[in-house]
């Protein structure tokens, strides 16, 4: 399966392939590359992937209805559906919806947590860190700069980020160019910078449990 470009994943998501598999993963578009990489490396041919637009990350109240609609649309075509979202700012509502629909989802508060491993992430108690994943680093302008109006009003930066101390770049793959970009993002936000290679963390474990 060819990985679509980031802009498509951000705005449109990804439709599942026509051939139905045994398991459908309904995921956030921000996880598409990573899921496809794990799927390919593990040889999970029976898993199909459908993604919702990653930009829903910025409007968590729209995630639950979107996931509900996607599950309803595809449920009849697959033996099993697995929702590849964490809570993602839904305040427990996504879990409640998944329970009601009889589908499972990834554990944890958000992707920053499961990439690092939920237990390890919680143990750090990093209150003043702002996180970027590979996808969010590549899409920094679309997910951070523009929605927060920093391109038009850079003076708002400290109102948004004044209480943060550092930007943590959680890298899923080793990519020096992305690391440079993450450093530039930290500078832009006026934050200290930390590089943290996470790989796929609990995402891979959660997918493996569905295989």
């Amino acid at each position, binding site marked *: 399966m060819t990985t679509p470009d980031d802009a498509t994943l951000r705005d449109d998501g990804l439709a599942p392939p026509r051939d139905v598999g045994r398991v459908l993963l309904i995921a956030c578009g921000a996880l598409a590359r990573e899921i496809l990489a794990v799927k390919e490396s593990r040889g999970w041919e029976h898993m199909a992937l459908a993604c919702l637009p990653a930009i829903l990350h910025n409007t968590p109240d729209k995630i639950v209805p979107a996931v509900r609609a996607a599950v309803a649309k595809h449920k009849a075509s697959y033996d099993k559906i697995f929702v590849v979202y964490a809570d993602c700012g839904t305040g*427990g509502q996504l879990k409640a919806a998944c329970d009601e629909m009889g589908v499972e989802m990834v554990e944890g*508060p958000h992707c920053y947590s499961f990439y690092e491993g939920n237990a390890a992430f919680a143990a750090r108690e990093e*209150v003043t860190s702002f996180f970027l994943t590979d996808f969010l680093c590549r899409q920094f302008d679309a997910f951070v700069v523009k929605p927060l109006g920093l391109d038009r*009003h850079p003076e708002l930066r400290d*109102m948004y980020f004044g209480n943060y101390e550092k930007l943590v770049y959680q890298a899923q793959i080793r990519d020096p160019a992305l690391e440079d970009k993450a450093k530039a993002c930290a500078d832009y936000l006026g934050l200290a910078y930390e590089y943290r290679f996470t790989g796929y963390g609990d995402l891979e474990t959660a997918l493996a449990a569905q295989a």
Partner: protein
Amino acid sequence: MSDEEDDIILSELNDEELVAQMFDDLYDGLKEEIEEGVEILLERKWEPYDILTKALVGGMTIVGNDFRDGILFVPEVLLAANAMKGGMAILKPLLIETGAPRVGKMVIGTVKGDIHDIGKNLVGMMMEGAGFEVVDLGINNSVESYFEAMEAENPDILGMSALLTTTMPYMKVVIDTMVEKGVRDNYTVLVGGAPLNEEFGKAIGADAYCRDAAVAVETAKDFMARKHNQLAAG
């Protein structure tokens, strides 16, 4: 809201036109213009409380409504709030001097583990604009911090804010401790923040969940009115 504004001389407008212009300037987040408008109204012998309620709060109400309706977004609201803050800074000492009516007192802060204070700051500012005395505890507040403030300040209302799913359960910790200590009914507890909802507010034993700053103000006023009615009846 247009380039024509560059040519407008605020001091040449009559009161009605000036207030209308201040609504526009607040909407556009023009802090200096708001400060100038406030100064002009003061020179014209307006009461500070009238400037606050008629010019600033009136303008921010439009901003709040358009935010609620999806016409304005967070950056524009922040700019407007910043402009209002400029006007408030001039009025605040005068309001204290002139003994403006006080609706009630609120202690507010984000909960432990949460540093996101934009919503909390907006609520605090709008509450001040509505005549509440606001004690802002800032970010990352423990149960102890809330209790210390409640004991020291004796507020009518405790406001708690959280942006994260991981920190919002801490509100229940605070409320449960209030129940344990037998002080829960001494305060109106209002909660807010992006991942919260009404159901959550009820589940943790808050008096109300407030969707945005405007709702927080209206809810707080309602509770204060009920309190006064109870006292009057009692």
